[in-house]
């Protein structure tokens, strides 16, 4: 095999990633049309798309920017609830489902972006584990706020309250959209697998272009050595914030997609465990490896459903936990690592790639 130039190699790599996503979409659509999918898998199609986008978004922060975030479910919930508010309040004005979904996504993404700026500015001053714990704290604060937030709509516009539904002072035709700990109920399900697929493609394009741009290289330089990068004139705050907010925006859009798949949802859905779930996708898929995140997110969302059909229903989460531990131990074992590196170099014939801090593929 002859050596490819770096630009060419990147093109091939990106094409493979897009190819996998498009092929998976077509295969799933065909299977779905042929009735080959069980109802439980069918129900997972949109959540899989949402989790894939979340994994891409988190990988941008954890893998490319090198900052551990434990609160990404917070951005997901900001997107989800503001998107639902937008969609439900425009129900009578815009009859088209597709346009309403698109508007909800834009609103959700924008609000999550604002939240990203608010959280990012203070958080990115910190380092390492302290940064992680503060993102966790922000995630919990966001969830707590949605737990007491009431939003309603009538002819006069939106009403907000932090007490209860009655304090919204809605007129007769008004309706409450967010009801504190109940979240939203009676939402029209607008999400579809196709919408999810388009969102994945958008997220992928944004991320891959960002990573291979001048800014992306600056972000990775800051990850690899902050002091060295700053000393050649790369502003840490600007580029770290850029990665963080882009990630928050994508997480918001994913949140809208996720929420639009259900008719009701409570804020406690987006708790610490959801943030961790997404982090697991990123780490198992390979930190900094976008393609790996996509595969891991899709596979790990389906895995518990597959275990369900094996008559292992009550043991499935236990199996999931054991698989998680074993995979982490196995992938970090020097012997196994060396074996895979050898296999890889034999297949590609190319010289071995640097394991740590590789660019996104």
């Amino acid at each position, binding site marked *: 095999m002859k050596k490819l130039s770096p630009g060419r190699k990147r093109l091939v790599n990106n094409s493979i990633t897009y190819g996998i996503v498009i092929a998976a979409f077509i295969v799933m659509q065909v299977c779905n049309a042929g009735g080959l999918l069980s109802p439980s898998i069918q129900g997972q199609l949109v959540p899989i798309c949402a989790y894939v986008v979340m994994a891409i978004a988190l990988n941008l922060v954890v893998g490319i920017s090198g900052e551990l975030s434990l609160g990404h479910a917070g951005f997901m919930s900001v997107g989800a609830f503001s998107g639902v508010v937008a969609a439900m309040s425009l129900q009578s004005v815009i009859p088209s489902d597709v346009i309403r979904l698109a508007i909800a996504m834009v609103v959700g993404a924008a609000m999550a972006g604002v939240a990203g700026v608010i959280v990012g500015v203070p958080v990115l001053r910190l380092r390492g*584990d*302290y940064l992680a714990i503060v993102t*966790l704290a922000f995630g919990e604060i966001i969830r707590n706020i949605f737990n007491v937030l009431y939003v309603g709509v009538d002819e006069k516009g939106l009403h907000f309250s932090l007490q209860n539904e009655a304090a919204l002072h809605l007129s007769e035709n008004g309706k409450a959209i967010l009801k504190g700990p109940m979240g939203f109920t009676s939402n029209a399900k607008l999400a579809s697998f196709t919408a999810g697929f388009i969102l994945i493609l958008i997220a992928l394009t944004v991320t891959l272009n960002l990573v291979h741009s001048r800014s992306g290289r600056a972000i990775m330089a800051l990850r690899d050595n902050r*002091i060295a990068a700053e000393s050649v004139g790369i502003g840490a705050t600007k580029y770290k914030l850029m990665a963080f907010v882009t990630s928050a925006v994508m997480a918001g859009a994913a949140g809208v997609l996720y929420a639009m798949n259900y008719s009701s949802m409570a804020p406690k859905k987006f708790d610490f465990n959801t943030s961790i779930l997404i982090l697991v996708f990123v*780490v198992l898929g390979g930190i900094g490896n976008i393609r790996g995140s996509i595969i891991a997110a899709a596979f790990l969302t389906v895995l518990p459903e597959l275990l369900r059909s094996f008559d292992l229903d009550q043991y499935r989460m236990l199996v999931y936990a054991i698989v998680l531990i074993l995979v982490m131990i196995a992938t970090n074992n020097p012997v196994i690592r060396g074996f895979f590196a050898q296999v890889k170099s034999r297949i590609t014939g190319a010289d071995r790639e640097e394991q740590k801090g590789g660019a996104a593929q």
Partner: protein
Amino acid sequence: MSFLNNLITGISLGSVYAIIALGYTMVYGIAKMLNFAHGDIIMVGAYVIFFATGSFGLNPIVGILLAVVVCTVLGVVIEGLAYKPLRQASSLAVLITAIGVSYFLQNAALLLWGADPKVFTSVIPEGSLPIEGVNITYVSLVTVLVCIIIMLALTWFTSKTKLGKAMRACSENKDAARLMGINVNRTISMTFAIGSALAAIASALLFSSYKNLIPTSGSLPGIKAFTAAVFGGIGSIPGAMLGGILLGIIETFAKVINTNISDAVVFAVLIIVLLVKPAGLLGKTIREKV
């Protein structure tokens, strides 16, 4: 007087957080890992006490001792099986493994003991001190006393005993410690043992005042205690103590104002403290070398 009563409740809750936070902070100091499964060890300890005193009718003291033994063994086994193979791995890999262990413990508890809440019987007699106007329950009194004893014992242990000094040496510099003839692996195992034993004691105190016990009841106190450890400066034993007690007081007063947002207030205070003092209240700021 309600101010004083709230303060007492806060200090008592904070003492429990402090004991849990000690487990986090010691493990972090020596192994540089966030042991997410620590909260679930508390849950296991609580179930052991529940069954020992409830189903087998054992004396509460025996129940607590049994929980200490079970948790210590559990902590050491977890460390040996799951964390030890990852000594050289990235901190994220260890973190995910710890999360895996946490899921494992929660789901194992779910299978063994079911999802329905168990009502914990207090290991400490109900009632309060006969003082006019102030409500000091025996539970809070014992909690605070136990917390002080543990604090003093740990300070003595880490500064005076050979093993304690070995622990501090390992947290400073593992390679140098190894060269001085310290068995680093055994020291780390011992740290996990002590942390888990403290978790068992914390479980007895925590569930004596907050009675409902389900397989996930350990995780939120775990996260809060971890917050307390960061708040006081992670890796520092007095810091964990201070952080825990402050966190308990803040949470109690926030609950008086509005129950729903007490957690938000706790985390907001944490963020403000970290922005002003990025290494926590008593943490050491380490200068970065080029």
